[in-house]
């Protein structure tokens, strides 16, 4: 019997659609070129890990792809449509971003999780959707709790629930587990891996941690001095000492 199409299988077959793509991207800060990417594409169902040493331009690349920064040169496309200042809000509303810090707003867990839905004017039960994602991230019973009373791990779970509740076409993660202590990190990583597999969400993950790469990624980009120096599967990257050195992992 034929299996239902799984986005990950499509990636393997090479017929997945590009969700986000960039061409000829160049970012300059204080007269210095910090990112030069001739071509990049993220396809449906992929989890692309971006690794590299500090200052390699990983977060800058993520900000450009997440339409939070416009590059000095080059173009970014979302599902074939060029991102411009006119359509950027609409395109951002089809994505989610989770940063290293939870960056929650003053209020309760529930208010934070449903905030993105409210900004989008979603009328179809934003509260029920928020409650469901709070449950999936193991925070049931904390809906009415003020976010300033949460632990670091709980706050990051709220940030992830706030991102997933939006049902994003692509999820950007900028070292979302790096500020957590070891136990909280392991627990969250385990739950996150399950959720990312269940949802099949397309994601771009900036990380320093090869455990996260091995657990989550389907493809790896190694960035160094603002340029993509290597690309491959987690296995090929982890087996190559040169790439490992570039990524600052070995």
């Amino acid at each position, binding site marked *: 019997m034929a299996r239902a199409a799984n986005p990950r299988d499509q990636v393997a077959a090479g017929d997945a659609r590009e969700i986000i793509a960039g061409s000829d991207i160049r970012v300059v800060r204080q007269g210095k070129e910090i990112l030069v990417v001739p071509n990049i594409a993220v396809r449906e169902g992929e989890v692309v890990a971006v690794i590299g040493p500090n200052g390699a331009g990983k977060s800058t690349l993520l900000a450009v792809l997440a339409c*939070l920064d416009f590059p000095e040169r080059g173009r970014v496309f979302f599902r074939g449509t060029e991102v411009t200042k006119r359509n950027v809000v609409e395109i951002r509303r089809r994505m989610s*971003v989770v*940063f290293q*810090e939870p960056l929650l707003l003053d209020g309760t867990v529930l208010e934070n999780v449903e905030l993105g839905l409210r*900004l989008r004017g979603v009328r179809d039960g934003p509260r029920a959707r928020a409650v469901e994602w709070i449950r999936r991230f193991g925070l049931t019973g904390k809906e009415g709790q003020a976010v300033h009373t949460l632990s*670091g791990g709980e706050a990051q779970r709220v940030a992830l629930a706030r991102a997933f509740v939006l049902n994003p076409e692509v999820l950007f993660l900028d070292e979302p587990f790096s500020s957590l202590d070891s136990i909280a990190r392991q627990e969250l990583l385990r739950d996150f891996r399950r959720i990312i597999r269940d949802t099949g969400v397309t994601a771009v993950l900036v990380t320093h941690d090869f455990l996260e790469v091995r657990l989550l990624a389907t493809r790896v980009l190694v960035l160094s001095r603002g340029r993509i120096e290597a690309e491959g599967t987690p296995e090929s990257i982890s087996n190559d000492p040169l790439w490992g050195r570039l990524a600052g992992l070995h």
Partner: protein
Amino acid sequence: MDLIWRGLARGVKLLLSGDPEIYEIAFLTLRVSGLATLVSLVLGVPAGLFLAVRKFRFRRALVGAVNTAMGLPPTVVGLWVAIFLWRSGPLGALGLMYTPTAIVIAQVLIATPVVTGFTMASVQQLDPKLPRQILALGASPLQFWWLVIRECRFGLLAAVMAGFGAVISEVGASMAVGGNVRHHTRVLTTAIVLEVNKGNFDVALALSFILMTLAYAVTFALTVVQQRKRRYVT
């Protein structure tokens, strides 16, 4: 000490006696300083938000100018506003000199840099990544500014208090452009100066107690609102 007690007693007596002139001066003070604070909020809050969030050329110079203007001497502001509003001045045709409007204009110039500076500081106290997170959540420009204002609302209340405190307590500008005209532009601070000059220390003290009570009442009300809820700190 006797002078202070007499002043206090006279103040209470003046208030209880319902002296219409005292109430007229107190209400004019509240009206003029309240309006000046409102206008300075309309000008200063957007300016402070813009300076805090946006990066542009000469931003540092502009921030430096705002910080300097926060300590602008009211007498100097009064002098410049008087020059502009004087009959032969650039805005003399408007006939605003020695009117409550002239005092409002001068007080707006005093309070706006204070409100701008406090707003800027309160936004800069937020996590610098928070504005990016708000954008990433899909906020439109209007939603973005609303959420930023909501996040730093306690700092903005401090801006209101500082702006109001700066104008209700100033005397130099009100004297220079208002002229302390009885039943027309006399406010509590200029009335106090007049009574001191006449040697009526008890009346001056009575007026000063009224001024302090007004300033305290407004500031206390704002403080209650400010302290009602604790903000997100981690």
